[in-house]
């Protein structure tokens, strides 16, 4: 019993310490992002573009793939129910709103957490265990400025971009089913989509993905920079990074949705 309590206490303390550490990393990142340039210590533009290329452009295929099939699946799943109400045309609105508000940002976030978050942790973790992070530090090059900020910035820019793309592709997936399987007139489908879709829907989704991007980058970098214990440590850190990112994405999605829901945004 005592041991159980000790374990619970230990876990709680570790969790709180990690929350504090991650917050500190966020503060440091923001400092280097906004204050650093004024102190003549900017972040290298090349490394930001390099990260954007890796995180954004090279994730295009998987994001398009996931979004397209999600759109198709929603359309297929909802069509029979709506048909029984004689409202098949509403498939268009349903697909558009559910994708832009919820599914595109969350699914894209999860996919990117798996692809990019894991890569960030594995790379920084390997750098940490092979003394490269320490080397940076002793060369008076701040690791947060050189490693974390480019990844953070690249991801909070690229994830919203990918999400908007996923919105469009997903809606196109629904369109394919609507037009070719449910025999809805193409013009009518598009018209109905835009009748239901508001700027607000898209914007809340994009805002969500912005938060998810920050979460993935911060957790990925934090786990990477705190890796210990060689190759095994890198593996463990990567797993922890992905699992934590997944949980936090779902959690923050719930919180953000609640905020939008109750504040009527």
């Amino acid at each position: 019993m005592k041991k159980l309590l000790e374990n619970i206490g230990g876990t709680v303390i570790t969790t709180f310490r990690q929350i504090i550490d991650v917050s500190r990393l966020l503060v440091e990142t923001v400092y280097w992002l906004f204050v650093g340039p004024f102190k003549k210590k900017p972040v290298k533009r090349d490394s930001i573009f390099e990260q954007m290329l890796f995180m954004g452009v090279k994730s295009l295929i998987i994001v398009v793939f996931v979004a397209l099939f999600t759109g198709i699946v929603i359309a297929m799943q909802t069509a029979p129910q709506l048909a029984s109400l004689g409202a098949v045309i509403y498939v268009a609105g349903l697909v558009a709103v559910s994708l832009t508000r919820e599914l595109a940002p969350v699914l894209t976030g999860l996919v990117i957490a798996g692809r990019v978050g894991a890569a960030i942790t594995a790379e920084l973790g390997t750098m940490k265990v092979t003394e490269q992070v320490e080397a940076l530090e002793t060369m008076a090059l701040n690791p947060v400025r050189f490693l974390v900020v480019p990844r953070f910035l690249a991801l909070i820019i690229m994830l919203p971009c990918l999400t908007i793309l996923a919105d469009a592709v997903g809606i196109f997936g629904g369109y394919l089913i609507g037009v070719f399987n449910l025999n809805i007139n193409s013009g009518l489908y598009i018209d109905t989509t835009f009748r239901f879709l508001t700027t607000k829907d898209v914007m809340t989704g994009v805002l969500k993905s912005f938060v998810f991007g920050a979460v993935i980058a911060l957790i990925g970098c934090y786990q990477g920079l705190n890796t210990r214990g060689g190759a095994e440590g890198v593996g463990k850190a990567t797993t922890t990074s992905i699992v934590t990112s997944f949980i936090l994405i779902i959690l923050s999605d719930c919180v953000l949705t609640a905020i939008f829901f109750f504040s009527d945004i």
Partner: protein
Amino acid sequence: MEEKEVIIEVKDIYKKFGNRQILSGVNLKVYKGETMVIMGGSGCGKSTLLRHMVGTVKPDSGSVYMRGQNMAELDENGLDALRKKFGILFQSGALFDSLTVKENLCMALREHAKLDENIISIMVKMKLELVGLRGFEALMPSQLSGGMKKRVGLARAIAMDPEIVFYDEPTTGLDPIMAGVIDKLILDLSKKLSITSVAVTHDMNSVFRIADRIAMLHEGRILQVGTQEEIKNTTNPMVKQFIEGQPEGPVNFFMSKEDYLEELIK
């Protein structure tokens, strides 16, 4: 004996990692221009002591003074200013995997010295020439052998023309010839450029080739500090056992026999 300028002073530092006491009261002075070698068995705290000197690890108690400044009291900027004055050769080289050899060397130069790109290129070539690797600028670290990585690491350590260079096991894992080459480089650097060197190693050949003074570290304490002659003619049985590489002696590798039996039948 003439009064020499103390450049690094370690005062009574204690350090614990978890429940293991790594350093328990280390005192050490390094003078300007000398090559100080810290030797000791694996796990005796050599690398930890080195990390205290470069400021990546903070002591539980005690302090490290570099050029008269207490490293624990410096803020990030002060520490960075100090760090620009020294270079470190890491055990594995610690080259940045994602950058070419040249970029590895350029990194600190581009950031800290506002120099023309042409001048940086020339400086990189000069440093690589020193370690015998001119022409390897465009290679990635993964294309280099262990010895080459170490030499590039050395070139990077001296890229900023430091006043102090730290070596973490500079010859470990190298063949004897390459070890000799690295030792010669260390000697050349300290003699020609009058760089202060601090090396951590347990390679005895290397120790007696490069050291001006030697400090023997054992179980978190300095057993003896002295010149090569003093260490060779030591009366301390532990130091003697270490430099002669005797398996039996005051430093016991095997635990007692009774323990072993108990452990087996438990």
